[in-house]
């Protein structure tokens, strides 16, 4: 069982020396209990305490790092099976697949294609983070190394899908500094692969004929001292890959079986070859259920827009709602003469409201002030959406840019109208309906 902060605190030296970086031993203990800090950060812990705490506070699932620099990603480290229990901490990462079985032109196409998707959504850069370079034996080692080299130029983290130890070794020579994943160990080659991965300092991917073989191989690798692993859920069938991905994660977190306490790779490109629609469905499925890396044949905007949206939703803190940046968002070609509407910066509210505004076809400006990321009524109750906060935003940000002096406020805070009229002389304050779905008709009537 995990220890709580008080239990950990009891074992600390209680000196408040601040050497761990926390102001007090209590603050440090609480952070360790949350899994936010490691117990070893305390330099004054007795060996006994350290030994018993390390075991008890060790996370059920290891945190594995791949890549370097901007392309460094953290995988695993999850503590729960469902996002409502606690935030999922390590996002699913998406890789595009190239295989040396493809001809050169095709390889170039795929690599070129992997660069295309790159955009920002609610403050997060969305792009293909990884490339899977699959080894096709008939095409030979040289082509593989050449392809790896070419792929490495994109600056994305590589996954080397290669079970041939010699070929892998050659490939690692050209890319190991960028910390790729060497996804090639199984029951037949794990010792050599492990040695190779350890020497190169890279994460090793492990797979097997079935979940039991994977388990045994991981156990054997751990015995060799290699705990820098990722588990490949396999490509035998969709059903089995799903069963493996779910059971690996569940064993680690629910049953505290540390052997399966590693992140996972799911290769949907191989599970549904040449069927981009099925791959889309599977990418979504494995984003929901426990894929740490998902490999796809391609990532066009058609796949990217929904999958990155899903990921952004699933990997949010259930306590902290997503926020949009305060600012003026013109909709339907709204300009300085278009009517202004205001609401909170809670992302869900923003999306619902902006969606309805778009449907109305009426040019307008959606003015979002900082309301602490709360919904309208919650923000109002918490004092984060008040006549003061709105009028300040309008006078400072909106008035210099917008000529229209019509401001529509959410129906749920109709109570602010009088105060706003007093604080915003010259503005006509209009009450919107209480529900966003009524906005379309309301706006059409308003501007009719």
């Amino acid at each position: 069982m995990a220890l709580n902060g008080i239990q950990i605190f009891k074992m600390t030296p209680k000196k408040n020396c601040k050497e761990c970086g926390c102001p007090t031993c209590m603050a440090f203990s609480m952070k360790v209990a949350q899994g936010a800090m490691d117990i070893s950060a305390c330099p004054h812990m007795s060996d006994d305490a350290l030994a018993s705490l390390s075991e008890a506070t060790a996370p059920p699932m290891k945190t594995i790092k791949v890549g370097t620099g901007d392309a460094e990603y953290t995988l695993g480290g999850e503590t729960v099976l469902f996002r409502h229990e606690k935030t999922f901490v390590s996002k699913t990462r998406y890789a595009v697949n190239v295989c040396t079985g493809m001809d050169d032109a095709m390889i170039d196409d795929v690599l070129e294609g992997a660069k295309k998707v790159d955009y920002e959504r609610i403050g997060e850069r969305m792009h293909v983070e990884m490339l899977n370079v699959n080894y096709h034996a008939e095409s030979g080692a040289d082509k593989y190394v050449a392809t790896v080299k070419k792929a490495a130029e994109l600056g994305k983290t590589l996954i080397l899908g290669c079970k041939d130890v010699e070929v892998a070794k050659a490939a690692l020579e050209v890319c190991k500094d960028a910390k790729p994943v060497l996804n090639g160990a199984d029951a037949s080659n794990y010792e050599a692969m492990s040695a190779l991965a350890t020497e190169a300092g890279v994460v090793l991917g492990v797979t097997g004929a079935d979940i039991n073989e994977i388990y045994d191989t991981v156990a054997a690798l751990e015995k060799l001292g290699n705990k820098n692993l990722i588990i490949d859920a396999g490509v035998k069938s969709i059903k089995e890959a799903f069963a493996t991905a779910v059971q690996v994660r569940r064993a680690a977190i629910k049953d505290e079986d540390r052997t399966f306490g590693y992140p996972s790779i799911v290769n949907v490109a191989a599970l549904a070859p040449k069927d981009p629609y099925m791959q889309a469905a599977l990418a979504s499925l494995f984003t929901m259920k426990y894929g740490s890396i998902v490999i796809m044949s391609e990532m066009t905007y058609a796949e990217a827009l929904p999958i990155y949206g899903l990921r952004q939703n699933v990997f949010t803190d259930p306590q902290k709602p997503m926020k949009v940046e305060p600012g003026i968002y013109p909709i339907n070609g709204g300009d300085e003469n278009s009517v202004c509407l205001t609401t909170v910066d809670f992302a869900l509210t923003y999306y619902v409201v902006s969606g309805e505004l778009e449907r109305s076809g009426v040019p307008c400006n959606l003015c979002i002030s900082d309301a602490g990321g709360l919904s309208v009524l919650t923000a109002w109750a918490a004092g984060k959406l008040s006549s003061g906060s709105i009028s300040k935003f309008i006078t400072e940000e909106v008035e210099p840019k917008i000529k229209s002096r019509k401001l529509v406020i959410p129906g749920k805070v109709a109570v602010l109208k009088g105060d706003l009229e007093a604080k915003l002389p010259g503005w006509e304050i209009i009450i919107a309906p209480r529900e966003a779905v009524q906005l379309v008709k309301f706006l059409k009537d308003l501007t009719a």
Partner: protein
Amino acid sequence: MLINRIFSGNDAVYGLTEGAIDQAIAQHGAEKAVGFPNTAYCLPCYYAVTGVKVKTLQELKEALGVVKTLMTRNHELDDALMSGVATALCAEFIEALKYIDGATPYEEPCYGHLADAIIRELGVPLVTGDIPGVAVILGAAPTAQEGVDLVKSYQAQGILVTLVGGIIDQCKELGLNMGYGVRIVPLGYDVTSVIHVVSVAIRAALIFGNVTPGDAGGLLTYTSQRVPAFVNAFKPIDDVILAAGAGAIKLGFPVISNETENIVEVPGALIAQPDVSKFNATSLEARNIKIKITKIDIPVAFASAFEGEIIRRGDMQVEFDGSRVDCFELVQSKDASEIEDHKIEVIGPDFDEFEVGSKQSIGYIVEVAGKNMQSDFEPVFERKFHSYINCIEGIMHTGQRDMIRVRVSKDAYAAGFRAKHIGEVLYAKIKNEFEAVVDKCQVKIYTNAEDCTKLRHELAIPAFDKRDDRLSNLTDESVDVYYSCILCQAFSPSHVCVVTPERLGLCGAVSWLDAKATNELDPAGPCQVITKEKPIDESLGSYEDVNEAVKKFSQGALEKVTLYSIMQDPMTSCGCFECICGIEPFSNGVIIANREYSGMTPLGMTFPELASMTGGGVQTPGFMGHGKHFISSKKFMKAEGGVERIVWMPKELKETVADRLNETAKELYGIENFTDMIGDETIAEDPETLVAFLTEKGHPALNLEPMM
């Protein structure tokens, strides 16, 4: 006497039925088919009561034998009521015989038997309350006008009106538009035709109540609880009508009559009301029918869009200002007999008599009555007045109790808004929103300065004082139940607040009284009753029942909580808490940080840091979210010694709670000015400085047992 009359009426109808069946058999033969058109339930009443389907005259004859067994003649009320049922079944038999050979015994405007399809269609609005009741009017009113007025009064309320006998001709005489579409259904002239509305109620029980045919008990329960029907029978009431009425009563339908001769009232069942104009009110009250108010009768608009409207001095027709003159608003619960529903009285001059822009007195008392009304709900209703009155276009309201200010704009006045309209709004909103507990409501509006002064001091202030006393005397020990609150589970899935009188919800917004009212008004809603019958450790505040409730409402995420400890199974926090308290190990105490405080605490954690580890419905021993009000509670971490553990609070918070906290500390420990011993950010933001301060002040926590 009443019972004998019923027996005699029943015997008469039985005799008629027997004769009619025998004659029909003689005419058509025993195998002749018998039944009503467009129903799958044969003779629905008989089928529902016995589970037997009657299809031929022979079977009808046998059924009559069964009916005979109901006609026991002990001189008891129940025998009389069963004879009433027997009378109804006989009526059904007689009516069925009329339909032999596909005959159409009823013609315009009478309907006679109603098809199953109509019942399926009627059942839905009956279930939703769109048809709030079913009136059965029998006989002829003293005058046609009185009869039609009664019918129209029901029609205006959306009640389905069925007519039997002379009332039909009275309606025809005055040209009343009748028919199923306008919810006025003449059944027939014979008293036996009343069975067609009974048949509607009974088939509704079979279709909508899943009552099994033959389950007479289930049937009677359904009709009495779920079919809001009642009977208005005009005099003279003969024995046959009385016997049929007994059947209605057995089904749970009260009978209201203007007959006063040879009749004995049965409370709630057979009611004498000599004044026909009061039939409507008497009937609705007897059957507990509540009419939804869909439109508030005022000359200006009513909408939440007007809630924030500000009426400036220059736009003001008149102002009632509780800070200058005597004003008040008050809800009082009364006995039902003291209230005439929807009576709105204005006592004193109306707005017309006030000088434009002047300050005047006003006092309005909303009197309510209801079987489930409790005086604890009075402040809950009263707190809504502000929003109700503000939603009126052109009216502004601030404050509460006897510190209110109401402004009426010139525009509203010009549109015809007067004092009584305030009453209309309060009446309509209270009746609609608190339908579950308010049966009757009337409003008195006083505009005389003398009245307002007198009532404010003699009625309102004592009432407010009494309430405050009740609140301050309300302790966890003095109540039998607590309430759960899961309003914030949307954000904090496994969190459950246990709301007790001394520990309001940690958001600070839900008191025990609020939770109680929420539960009464919305029984399936977010606040549920938690019993406290199985204590485990009362000093910790742990109860088996509380644990069970917490487990249930958190969907198993939490196993147990204590009410008064922050160390052992502390209550969880959602995320909307006003404050967090956390253990400060170096002083044996706790610090408290409130949401508004943005600085550092001596724990080395800021409010957001503390919040991130205590929120989300997770139990974090040593840390707990709570409301500001809870800080001065005698139950605040009682298990660890109570408020004397508090060693640090942000200055602003300390000042807010100082008076009440000092009072508690004095009462519990005899410490004067306890807050002077408590640190704040101007004194210390780290544990060492804090402990030095506490030592200097001699803070009691330093000498208490260690908390861990």
